[in-house]
């Protein structure tokens, strides 16, 4: 193989004129993290709502929840990204469509919404499974004390369900983080996109993607660390 290794490349100025290649990758990392966090907020809230709907004793709520999950879980993420970015502005009323197209940072907002809605379908399934794994008597006990359905979920079912599903939720969070790279297809300058740009400018493909890989691994380790810290924080004394 005829390859010129050059690990010093990171400290060379990038042709974009905004700093070194290292700066370029770090800005990509920042966008990856910010996109992952913002979309996770949507995924967590919407996913919890949809998951709860699937466990309610109400047919309409079940139907809405099931439809949501099946729809967003089964369409490939890449297709969803294109639908939000290219198709939605065309099918909306003209004014809204052109407002969307002119939005600064449109790839970012689109990625946040798209990932949020996609990951919500997966979070919903975890939340549903968590609630359904609780003893049936827990809901009855809450109800028998006079708590409303909402109060029973808020104070009894969800706090227990979230504790149970913390490990799978962590892996959904990590999936969501990895999925941010799909947004490079709509022009989000996240980590993978920046590594690719670096490779195109400098031809140092190995260095660029090695650096990206290491950065992804570091975030993963940090997330797992935080998750196990949360797990210890919320552990219930005397259980298991």
């Amino acid at each position, binding site marked *: 193989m005829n390859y010129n290794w050059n690990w010093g490349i990171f400290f060379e100025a990038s042709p974009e004129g905004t700093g070194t290649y290292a700066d370029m990758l770090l800005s990509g990392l920042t966008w990856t993290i910010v996109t992952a966090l913002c979309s996770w907020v949507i995924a967590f809230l919407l996913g919890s709502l949809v998951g709860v709907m699937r466990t309610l004793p109400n047919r309409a709520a079940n139907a809405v929840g099931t439809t949501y999950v099946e729809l967003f879980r089964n369409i490939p993420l890449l297709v969803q990204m294109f639908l939000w970015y290219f198709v939605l502005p065309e099918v909306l009323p003209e004014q809204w469509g052109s407002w969307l197209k002119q939005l600064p940072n449109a790839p970012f907002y689109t990625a946040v919404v798209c990932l949020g809605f996609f990951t919500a379908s997966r979070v919903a399934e975890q939340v549903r499974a968590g609630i359904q794994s609780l003893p049936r008597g827990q809901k*009855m006990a809450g109800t*028998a*004390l*006079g*708590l409303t359905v909402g*109060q029973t979920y808020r*104070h009894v079912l969800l706090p*227990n369900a979230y*504790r149970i599903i913390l490990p799978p939720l962590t892996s959904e969070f990590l999936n969501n983080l990895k999925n941010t790279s799909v947004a490079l297809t709509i022009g989000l300058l996240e980590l993978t996109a920046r590594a690719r740009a670096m490779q195109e400018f400098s031809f140092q493909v190995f260095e660029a993607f090695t650096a990206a890989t290491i950065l992804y691994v570091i975030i993963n380790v940090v997330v797992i660390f935080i998750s196990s810290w949360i797990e210890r924080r919320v552990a219930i004394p*005397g259980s298991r």
Partner: protein
Amino acid sequence: MRAPLNTSSAPAEPTGPMIAMTNVSKWYGDFKVLTNCTTSVNKGEVVVVCGPSGSGKSTLIKCVNALEPFQEGQVVVDGTPVRDKRTNLPKLRARVGMVFQHFELFPHLSIAENLTLAQVMVLGRDRGAALDSGMTLLDRVGLSAHAKKFPGQLSGGQQQRVAIARALAMNPIVMLFDEPTSALDPEMVGEVLDVMVQLAREGMTMMCVTHEMGFARKVANRVIFMDKGEIVEDATKDDFFGHARSERAQNFLSKILQH
């Protein structure tokens, strides 16, 4: 002498039965779980419900606070019809205490929080007052040293006593028990029954699904025997344990009294 468990301020004048159940029928799909169940529980009465497994005892008792919906008949609790769209069910349920076979304490909350949650959320008491009444009741079931613990740190018998205290903290006008001792190790049955006996002697209206015939003998006014979703026998304690009873009840009694 222990202080009274029951701090309810229910009206004193006898205005009909506390629980009146008329022709209650219930189906799960095609399967008829309850058939024309009619009975009543008067103020201050202790009624024991027994019968073979699957006979519908739990279902019957859960109809009283509409934890289980039923398709026919009516249950009236202290004058309030349960099967009526206008009835505010959470409000009604808050006045009907219920104790479950598997305790169903909230595992993520401390004992103190288990006792105060519904007082604050449902009755709108402020935290201090809720804690006061919770602690008083905890003391009366002999567990005040455990307020800061979590359910998983208590024995089954202790958890069930907390569950009783949690129900009493709502100042219920009637208490429902669904096999409160059948998930317990034998050495813990007594401590829970003691609390229930004390409660009965203080005049609490109680409907208890239980096979503890010693408890029934001690405090029950009436015994209801169920089989295949029907109330086969609804007799005074003396009649039930005496001679006049159906063959099915006799069979059942001879089986459980052997042990």
